[in-house]
């Protein structure tokens, strides 16, 4: 069983955390970073009492927990469809009992952040005699974990049928796809839930920061919200590079100039950011500022993409860099120097892209 658990952890659990490190960090920040440390315990005590005493609040929280599980299932089902994971067909040779427990354990590992917080809720509930709410939470998690395990096992046991199961239906594009849309197709087909989550977080961040009232027109609040949204996109930058090194390798052999390749990247990220830019536009950001913000946001993502042609393609290094760039950008936004950063990121991005594009070689 130990060997099976290790394989599942490597193929499914580790991959989930790798892909969602940015998002998890963001949630952690919202939960523990926005409140002063001396208020933290009271803040969470109030939050937990709210969950335990209000059925509506509890239902809302359960909805968020379900979305989290849905995100995991989406990733697992798309990973199981990948050719390099077809060896998991052999998992179906185990007995039902031998299949069940390692898979349940891997799902518990993924659910750890939710389960840990739930343990606190259950503890507080038991202490304050909110037994009905505690009972519902325990039943909810048990059913959820069992159902997730059953769904994944069903998928693994049907791998030999060569049928791709998806949690969300893929968006079919009836027209010709131009090159920059090759990337977007990957997201809408293989990571639709991750895309949806990222956009929701991005919208919440922008709207949240724009609630800060000032006595004059202030662009920086919107930009700070946008920065959080951009950070949540870091997983898509990494996924785009992974796509380039797996399914788009043929593009390297085509006669496309470096400037055109760079502009394609800009166009792809520009299209990806259309929802955020529309949200800013309808929130009365003046057109010139919107233009600068567009350039800033696009080259913020393009720069990180071009940087992934240096060294090995690992999520750890990418995440560290993403966080560092976020901090620097946050300061530059505070000092109203985002226009300078947009210029610097475009120039540096093109320079390192031109230098590293043909020299990059993925290592096993």
């Amino acid at each position, binding site marked *: 069983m130990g060997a099976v658990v290790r394989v599942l952890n490597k193929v499914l659990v580790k991959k989930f955390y790798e892909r969602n490190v940015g998002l998890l960090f963001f949630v952690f920040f919202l939960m523990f970073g926005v409140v002063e440390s001396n208020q933290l315990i009271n803040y969470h005590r109030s939050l937990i009492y709210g969950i335990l005493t209000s059925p509506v609040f509890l239902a809302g929280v359960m909805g968020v927990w379900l979305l989290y599980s849905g995100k995991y299932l989406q990733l697992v089902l798309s990973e199981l469809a990948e050719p390099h994971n077809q060896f998991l067909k052999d998992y179906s040779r185990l007995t039902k009992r031998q299949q069940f427990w390692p898979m349940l354990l891997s799902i518990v590992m993924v659910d750890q952040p939710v389960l840990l917080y739930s343990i606190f809720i259950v503890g507080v509930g038991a202490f304050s005699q909110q037994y009905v709410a505690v009972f519902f939470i325990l039943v909810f998690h048990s059913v959820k974990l069992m159902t997730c395990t059953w769904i994944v096992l069903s998928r693994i046991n049907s791998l030999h049928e060569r049928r791709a199961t998806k949690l969300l239906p893929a968006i079919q594009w009836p027209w010709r*796809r131009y090159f920059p849309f090759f990337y977007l*197709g990957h997201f*809408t087909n293989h990571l639709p839930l991750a895309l949806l989550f990222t956009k929701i977080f991005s919208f919440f961040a922008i709207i949240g920061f724009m609630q800060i009232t000032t006595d004059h027109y202030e662009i920086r609040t919107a930009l700070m919200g946008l920065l959080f949204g951009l950070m949540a996109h870091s997983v898509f930058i990494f996924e785009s590079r992974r796509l380039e090194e797996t399914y788009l*390798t*043929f593009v390297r*052999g085509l*006669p*496309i100039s470096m400037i055109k390749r760079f502009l394609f990247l800009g166009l792809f990220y520009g299209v990806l950011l259309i929802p955020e830019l529309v949200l800013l536009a309808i929130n009365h950001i003046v057109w010139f500022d919107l233009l600068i913000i567009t350039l800033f946001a696009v080259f913020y993502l393009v720069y990180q993409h071009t940087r992934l042609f240096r060294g090995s393609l690992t999520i750890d290094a990418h995440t560290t860099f993403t966080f560092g760039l976020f901090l620097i950008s946050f300061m530059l936004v505070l000092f109203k120097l985002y226009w300078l950063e947009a210029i610097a990121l475009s120039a540096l991005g093109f320079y390192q892209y031109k230098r590293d594009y*043909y020299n990059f*070689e993925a290592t096993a």
Partner: protein
Amino acid sequence: MLSIKNVRKEYGDHLILDIHHLQFENGLFWIKGANGSGKSTLLKIISGMIPFEGDVTIDGVGLKKQPTDYRRLVNYVEAEPLFPTYLTGNDLILFFSSTRKAKKEEVEALIQKFNIEPFIKNPIGTYSSGMVKKLSLVLAFIGKPKYILLDEPLVTIDKESVPILYDLVKLYFNRGVNFIFTSHQAFELADIAVKELEVKDHTVWVL
């Protein structure tokens, strides 16, 4: 003429190729060699798919100095090509045609020749490995290359498609296109001499 000078390729500490000087004149070249000898690596180097030490030129156009112009002169097909499953064959053909500035009639003739029209508008994820290979062969002939590099072109295609491939090779060869291919099976091309080379001991030997 394709010229390879002082080319060296290592994967980590493992030396794969160390070619001092090699020239491909006009013709058809069959690269032989044992598994892992470096045949595919050689094709990837010539096509500009992987970085390497040294220089490769075609008629004076350098792969490193003029990367875009050079890539116009070489088309390459992998032994087991991977394409995004959500794209259609048509998406790829149109993309290749636009980057290689191919004529529409020419591309349509290739589509008909390989008989891929019935499934060209379906997502690649629904294709069999043979259908993917046929699509990749169509892509190999798009444009106006001087050299077409085919890595194991006979693998996974059905026996009906083999003579079609031979006909196309002959047709394009008569138009002045040169071919370099690796294969574990012999190319049976009447009227055209196939020059044989072998990758062995990290270099290329003319047989």
